């Protein structure tokens, strides 16, 4: 397994069907919240089309692994089920430190990262993302 990149803040993973959406959402988090929260994004299938990929989600989670946990933001259908599968495949010891937030992908990612930047725990980060209302 990879080394932890951060133990101070919860990390964020963005999983979209579209590589462009994932990249753009990640860029919004970096510009609006800053660099202190680790963000990984993944989107699209291996052929460059729309879709999500379990292995890519796992790799994204591992790339920003934090002992404080990882909050995952997803868009539609398969993004959620593939993320659930990816989390399960991380195995015990890791899987329980990763949550999927029931929040809109872009807004949820910004809110989650803002909360995480203050050092909040995973449950608080999830709550802030899920409390978002436009």
């Amino acid at each position, binding site marked *: 397994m990879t080394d932890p990149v951060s133990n101070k803040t919860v990390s964020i993973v963005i999983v979209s069907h579209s590589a462009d959406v994932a990249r753009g959402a990640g860029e919004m988090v970096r510009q609006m919240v800053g660099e202190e929260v680790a963000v990984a994004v993944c989107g699209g299938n291996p052929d460059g089309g729309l879709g999500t990929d379990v292995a890519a989600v796992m790799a994204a989670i591992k790339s920003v692994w934090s002992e404080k946990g990882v909050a995952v933001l997803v868009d539609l259908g398969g993004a959620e089920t593939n993320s659930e599968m990816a989390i399960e495949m991380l195995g015990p010891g890791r899987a329980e430190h990763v949550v999927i937030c029931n929040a809109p992908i872009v807004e949820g990612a910004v*809110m989650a990262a803002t909360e995480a930047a203050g050092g909040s725990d995973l449950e608080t980060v999830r709550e802030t993302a899920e409390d978002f209302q436009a």
Partner: protein
Amino acid sequence: MTDAAPNIAWVTGAAVIRDETGLHARPAVKVTKLARRFSSAVEIRGEGQERWVNAKSPNAVMKLRAAHEARLEIRAAGADAGAVVAALIALVDRNFDD
């Protein structure tokens, strides 16, 4: 939110929002992040607004919708109340470093 507790000694301040779109998303995040560096309770509201909101809550600050040229009112209570009010006024005066 805490208007029912008149015994709280608030340190207050205000600064005018210069950004043409008001307190939009990016500045809102900056307000929240700055407020969280202090231990005091910190609340803000836009000029003419009745309700104070928790400046440390990203969701609350994002929804505040304080407009361009409006005064952002700030109040804090706690050990570092003066410092956080001063820091937030400075942030608004710097136009959120945008």
